[in-house]
C-alpha cells in the first residue's frame, strides 16, 4: 500500500496549543498566612496583561481572601504566561502523533480515572467539548468537573507541545540531515506516541480486543466526605 506523502514529515509549525482555541492552562497554588488557594483555569494569551491584575483583584474579592493574595496571584499567572510566550516564537514539529492521555483527578466529591487517545495534529480539537460529552454521558452533576477535565487534558497537551518544541530544537542542532531528522522525530516521539504504522496497518482492526476495553474505560467514583478528607490529607502530605 502506498504511503500517503504527508504521513511522517511535516513542515515545522509555530508553537501553539494544539486545540481549537489557543488557551493556556494556568495552575495556581499559593499559600500565605495559613490560607491556601488552589486553582486551575485556562487563560487566553492574547488578552492584554492588564487583565491579569484585574482578574487577581476580582478573585480575591469574590473569595474574600486577604489582599496579599492579589500580588501573588498576579505574579504566578504572569510567570506562567511569560513561559508560554517564550515558547511561542519557536517551531515545533508536529508529525502525526496520537498520544495517550490519562486522567486521574479529583474534583470535590468526584474521582475520575480515564485513558484515551488524542491526536496532537488535530488543531480543531476541543477539550471542552470532550469534557462536556464526558459529563453528559456519565451523568455527572457537579458543574466543576467538566472544566477540571478539560483543564487536565489541556495541561497534558501543553506539556507534550513543549516537549515537541524541545525536540525540534534538538533536531535543528543535530546535523544528521533530513532523513535523519525523520528518524529522529519518529524515535523521539515514539516514547509517548503510538506507533501508527503498527496500529493502523491494513490487516489489523481498529476495534480493540474486548479484554482491553477496561483499560480505556472511564471510571467515575463519587466519594463520601471521609474519603475526600483522607485523600486531601494525603495530597497535602505529598506536596509538602
Amino acid at each position, binding site marked *: 500500500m502506498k504511503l500517503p506523502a504527508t504521513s511522517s514529515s511535516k513542515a515545522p509549525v509555530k508553537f501553539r496549543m494544539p486545540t481549537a482555541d489557543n488557551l493556556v492552562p494556568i495552575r495556581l497554588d499559593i499559600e500565605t498566612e495559613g490560607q491556601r488557594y488552589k486553582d486551575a483555569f485556562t487563560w487566553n494569551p492574547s488578552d492584554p496583561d492588564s487583565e491579569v491584575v484585574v482578574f487577581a483583584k476580582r478573585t480575591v474579592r469574590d473569595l474574600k481572601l486577604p489582599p496579599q493574595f492579589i500580588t501573588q496571584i498576579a505574579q504566578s499567572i504572569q510567570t506562567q504566561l511569560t513561559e508560554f510566550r517564550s515558547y511561542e516564537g519557536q517551531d515545533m514539529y508536529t508529525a*502525526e502523533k*496520537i498520544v495517550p492521555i490519562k486522567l486521574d483527578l479529583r474534583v470535590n466529591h468526584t474521582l475520575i480515572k480515564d485513558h484515551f487517545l488524542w491526536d496532537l495534529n488535530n488543531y480543531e*480539537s476541543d477539550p471542552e467539548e470532550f469534557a462536556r460529552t464526558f459529563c*453528559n454521558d*456519565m451523568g455527572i452533576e457537579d458543574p466543576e468537573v467538566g472544566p477540571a477535565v478539560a483543564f487536565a487534558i489541556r495541561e497534558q497537551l501543553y506539556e507534550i507541545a513543549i516537549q515537541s518544541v524541545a525536540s525540534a530544537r534538538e533536531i535543528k542542532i543535530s546535523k544528521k540531515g533530513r532523513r535523519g531528522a525523520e528518524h529522529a522525530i519518529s524515535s523521539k516521539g515514539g516514547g509517548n506516541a503510538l506507533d501508527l504504522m503498527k496500529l493502523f496497518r491494513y490487516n489489523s482492526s481498529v476495534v480493540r480486543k474486548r479484554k482491553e476495553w477496561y483499560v480505556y474505560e*472511564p471510571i467515575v467514583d463519587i466519594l463520601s466526605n471521609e474519603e475526600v478528607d483522607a485523600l486531601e490529607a494525603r495530597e497535602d502530605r505529598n506536596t509538602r
Partner: protein
Amino acid sequence: MEMPQYDPNTKPEFELYTIPSHSSWFRWDDIHETERTALKEFFDGSSISRTPKIYKEYRDFMINKYREEPSRRLTFTQVRKSLVGDVSLLHKVFRFLDEWGLINFGAVSRGDDSDNRDSSLGDTELKNQVKIEEGAPNGVRVVALPNSLKPISVPNSGADGSGNGKVAVAGETGVKLPPLASYSDVFGDLVKLKGFKCGSCGEQCNSGCYEYSKQGSFVICEKCFKNGNYGEDKSKDDFRFSDLGGNSLTHGATWTEAETLLLLESVMRHGDNWELVAQNVPTKSKLDCISKLIELPFGEFMMGSAHEMNSCPTGSLNSLKEGQSASSENQNDVKMEDQVHDQMNESKQNGDAATEEPPAKRKRIAPLSDGGSTLIKQVAHISTMVGPHVTAAAAEAAVAALCNESSCPREIFDGDEDYLANGLSSPTMVSDPERALQVDASKMEENQSETQDASSEKNDVPLNLRIRTATATALGAAAANAKLLADQEDREIEHLVAIIIETQMKKLHSKINYFDDLELIMEKEYNEMMQLKECLVEERIDVLERALKTGVSKWRS
C-alpha cells in the same frame, strides 16, 4: 434494512431497525457520498490512521453496538473505549451517525440535556419534540363580542362583530376576560412555600420533617426529633419521616417567576455583591443565583449594567436601541415612583437588551409570540409596542378581571384603583416617548404629586400581583392592538381590491372604444371599396358600349 420474515410458525430471524427516511442512502457494504463529504478526513489520504477501511470499521462498530440494544441510548463514552483512534475524530463520526439517525434513533432522548435547557421557568422539553404553534399565541383569545367568552379562531369573521377594536377587550370596567393560559395560582404558591412549622420548637422545617402518624397535623423538625423533643405524650416510634426537601420548597433547579423577578431586582440593587443577592432571594443559594442569572438570556447584560447602575443610571440604557433612547431619559424622571413602575421598567430594559429586532413599525409587527423566550421578555416586548391609551384601557380591564378572580386582590385594588390606574399609565407613557414628551408631560407632574403621597401605602402590594397585572395588561393591550391592526389591514385590502377592479374596468372600456373606432374605420373603408367597385363596373360597361357601337364583330370574352 432487513425485513422481518412473516412466518407465523417460526420466529423471525431478522430484526427490523428504523432509521429516518433521509438516511436511506446507507448501505452496509458501501460508503456513500454523504459520508465522504461529511467526514473528509478519512478520504483525503492525509494520514495512515484515517482511511476508508478504518472509517468503515468505526461506523459499523458503532451501529452494531447501538443495535445490540436499540431502546437504550448509546453514549459516546461507551464506544470510545472500544476503538483505537483520536477521540475527537471518533466523536465526529459518532455525531455524524447520531445526526443522521443511524444510531440512537429509537432511543429515549435525555430530558435534561444541558445544551437544550430552556431557561424559561425551568421547563425542560425533549429534544426531538417539534413545537407547533397554531392560531393565537397562548393566553390571547380573540372574542367575537365584548362580553362573550366564545373565542374565535380567525379574526376575519369576528372583525365586524367586535365593533371598534379598542372596545373589544377593554372599555367599561366589569368586562370579564377569560383566564389567561399563563394563569397560575400565585397565592397557592405562597401558601405552600410556607412549609411546615415544627410543633415543638416553632421553627420552619426545611429539609425534612417528622409527621406524627397518629394525628396527621403534628409535625416536628429534624432537629427536634434528634434532640428528643417529641412533644407531650408522644414517643419516637409514632413519627414518620417525610422529606420536604424536593417537594414543596423550590429546589435549586426550578425557579418561579417571583423568584426570578426578585433575583433581578436584587442584582440591580446590589450588583456584584452575591451575598446580599442570595439573602434577598430567600430560597436560593448564592451559586444558584449566579448560575440562573447567567442562564437568563440577558443575564450577562444585567451583571454588566449592575455595575454601571451605581455610577450612571442611564449609561447602559442609552446604548440600547435608538428608538428607546428617549424613553431612558424619561425613565430617569419617573424613577422616584412606585414599585410597579420599577417592575415595568426593569422588565422592559431586560426585554430591550434581549430583543435585537428594530423598533416595531406601525403597520407590520415583528412576531409577538416566541415560544422560546421568557414570559417577562415577551411582556416587555409587547408593552413597548402599544400606545398609551390602549394600554391604560387594557390595564383597567386586567385589574377588573383579577378582582373578579379572587377577593384578595380586590381588597388591595379597590381602595386604590385610581392610584393604580395612574401608576400603570405612567409606564405606558414612558413606552411611547414621543407622545410622552409633549402631551403627557403635564399629566406626569400631577401624577408625581399624587403618587408620592400614595407611594407609602403601596409597598405592601405583593410582587406577584403586580407582575400578573403587568402581564395581563400587556397581553390584553397586545390583543387589542392586534385587533386594530387586523381591521386596518382588512379595510386596506378592500380598498386596494376596489382600486384594482376600477382599473380593470377602465382598461376594458378603453379597449372597447378602441375597437369601436376600428369598426368605424373599417366601415368607411368598406364603403369606399364598394364605390370603387361600382366605378369600375361602370367603366367596364362604358368600354363595352363603345366597343359595340363601333361594330366590333367578334367579341372575345
